């Protein structure tokens, strides 16, 4: 099976590459990226004239809800949602039911992902059994079964000693520890960012300090143990500043920022819009600006969506009682391209933070169009006008804060392992 993607503007930050080229694919592998018009043999042709051809996007933070919560999402609908958003590789968090805290659950996820066969899915194992923060999960066996990182995402590990041992133990198996930084004794049942809007709505606020104090703890543990820390969904200015400082001190730390924390503020929660209820919460304009700056200067290593499907019934119960989380894979590109159109970040940097950026953190064989790489590509039109319409999503859920918003940027084709996984 041979595929040629011709006439596109190929941007591959892993090779510092930006030119009109043809990409030749054979047997699921990139054979060549060439200016030559001559195609040797029988190719299926995709004409990408006027479009951008990039390495397939990677989302290192998603929730696929299978096993256990298939009414929200499953591995198949999650795969389709990812492909429609231009993602060819995604990592899925452990908070399923049963929790992915042992090899049998990991194996089940890997098997289901292969059966669906649309995109590459790598599970993230739990740090602690049942995400209870008491005993370490069977990290070694999960890693042998395919987990590429460990995290108790959503259920922060409050016990500092357990977290320390998680770093040390994960070090033996070479997988990074991802922290969802939140001091539960400070966030204490809060529903949104603590500030003017929370006061106006009469909702319990979550101070930035709840996140920042835990980022600092985990940076100190990374230093203490000499093992890699990846900070999930950084949302505050000071949080980013602490990571910038840690990097200066050569502590092994990386972090991700989300499209929602980059572009939305807590004002989005006005009128009790539960689709804007997310953890960590949407913060302030100053925080957004700091995150954008961090993306520009490399303090933020990648963009991840924290795609978190919830049913309408779990959102339409009053803001305070609604589940936290929003879905983001099908909107990430258009939302982030807004920053490019507003000249706040470059297109190259955006693509980098969706491709080689996350690939490096988790040691994934992805995110590059180098010869011999897996043929994962995303072809998109950065200028095509779109209106976000949740009804058209491939995800099973509809909890987006961007409903009805007009943006620019559309995925035209997603190619994974040389096969078309999505075509608009």
């Amino acid at each position, binding site marked *: 099976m041979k595929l040629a993607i011709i006439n596109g503007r190929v941007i591959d930050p892993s090779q510092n590459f930006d030119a009109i080229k043809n990409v030749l694919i054979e047997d699921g592998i990139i054979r060549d990226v060439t200016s030559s018009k001559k195609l040797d043999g029988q190719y299926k042709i995709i004409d990408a004239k006027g479009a951008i051809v990039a390495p397939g996007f990677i989302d290192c933070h998603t929730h696929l809800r299978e096993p256990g919560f298939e009414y929200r999402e499953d591995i198949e609908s999650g795969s389709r949602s990812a492909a429609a958003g231009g993602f060819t590789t995604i990592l899925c968090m452990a908070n399923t039911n049963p929790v992915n805290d042992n090899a049998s659950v990991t194996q089940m996820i890997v098997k289901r992902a292969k059966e669906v066969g649309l995109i590459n899915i790598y599970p993230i194992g739990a740090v602690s059994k049942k995400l209870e923060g008491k005993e370490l999960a069977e990290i070694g066996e999960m890693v042998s079964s395919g987990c590429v990182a460990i995290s108790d995402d959503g259920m922060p590990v409050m016990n500092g000693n357990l977290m320390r041992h998680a770093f040390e133990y994960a070090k033996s198996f070479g997988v990074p520890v991802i922290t969802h930084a939140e001091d539960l004794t400070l966030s204490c049942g809060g529903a949104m960012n603590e500030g003017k809007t*929370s006061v106006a709505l009469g909702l319990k606020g979550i101070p930035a300090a709840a996140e920042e104090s835990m980022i600092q703890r985990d940076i100190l543990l990374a230093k203490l143990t000499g093992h890699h820390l990846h900070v999930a969904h950084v949302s505050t200015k000071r949080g980013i500043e602490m990571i910038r400082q840690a990097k200066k001190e050569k502590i092994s730390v990386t972090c991700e920022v989300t499209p929602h924390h980059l572009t939305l503020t807590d004002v989005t929660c006005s*009128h009790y819009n539960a689709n804007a209820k997310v953890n960590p919460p949407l913060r302030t304009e100053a925080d957004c600006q700091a995150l954008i700056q961090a993306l520009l200067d490399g303090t933020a290593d990648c963009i991840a969506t924290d795609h978190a499907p919830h049913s309408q019934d779990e959102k*339409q119960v009053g803001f305070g009682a609604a589940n936290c989380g929003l879905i983001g894979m099908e909107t990430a590109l258009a939302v982030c391209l807004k920053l490019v159109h507003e000249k706040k970040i470059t297109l190259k940097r955006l693509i980098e933070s969706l491709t080689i950026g996350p690939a490096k953190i988790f040691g994934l064989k992805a995110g590059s169009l180098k010869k011999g790489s897996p043929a994962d590509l995303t072809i998109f039109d950065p200028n095509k006008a779109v209106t976000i319409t949740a009804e058209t999503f491939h995800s099973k859920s509809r909890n987006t804060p961007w409903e009805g918003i007009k943006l620019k940027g559309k995925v035209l084709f997603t190619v994974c392992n040389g096969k078309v996984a999505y075509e608009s």
Partner: protein
Amino acid sequence: MNLSTKHILSIRDLTLKDIELILETATNLQEISKRAVKKVPALRGKTVLLCFFEDSTRTRASFDLAAKRLSADTLTFTSSGSALSKGESLLDTVKNLEAMNPDLLVVRHKLSGIPHLLAKNINCPVINAGDGTHEHPTQALLDLMTIVQTKKKVKGLNIAIIGDILNSRVARSNILLLTKMEAKVTVAGPATMIPADIAQYDVKISYDIRKIIPEADVIMTLRIQREREAECLFPSLREYARFFGLNKETMQSAKKDVVIMHPGPVNRGVEIAPEIADGPHSVILDQVTNGVAVRMALLYLLCGGKEGVE
């Protein structure tokens, strides 16, 4: 004359004209409650649903009486003993109730924003009878009516609101309403109960009630919710009473014509000493009386009552 809004979810929904109309209507309707036969046919044939998903005595009784004095039929609905306790979702419950064609829904709930959620999902007008730590607009309106009755004005008055500003829906509605009416509002209490961002409203902040009492024309003290002790907002009721309670000692420096208000229920000896609550400056029971009038006015205006008031 009609209100500019279909629902009363927040004081923000009301224009100055609306507020004027509500107070005027309430004043006119108040006389009905003093008659031997306390009933007029204004809302005959209308059905008012009283959904009290959180406990309430005075507000629920007040709405119920208000509706009955205008001849509306009322159906009171609480979460215990209903399908909600069988696990039916709130929206399903309310949509089922709506299918029985009520003309108005009064809702109280422990979560902020539930009246907004219901207003979005059903067709009839919704009145917020207190939602979580957000607002209690009808309480603020009856408080305003009481202030205007006693002081003959509200503009320019120094009004002190003392207590748990952070968690009080009464405080939030009153701050919005009284500043809209150009009163000078000061909020006071321990800093654990006064969010810094309350400064976004045009209010002064004080942590020492002794400093603000001498200036105050009206003092509104809020109920201390005992469960906040567990949240470490204050160390003990005794200490709270000593530093932030209204009593003979703290009230010594008050103006001679000061008016004392409390939304109830009162924790006697905590936020207010019995001799102050029952003293000559207290208008606490007038607030309750005015509550019925204000709620009659709102039901009348929102249910489209046109006739039969005389």
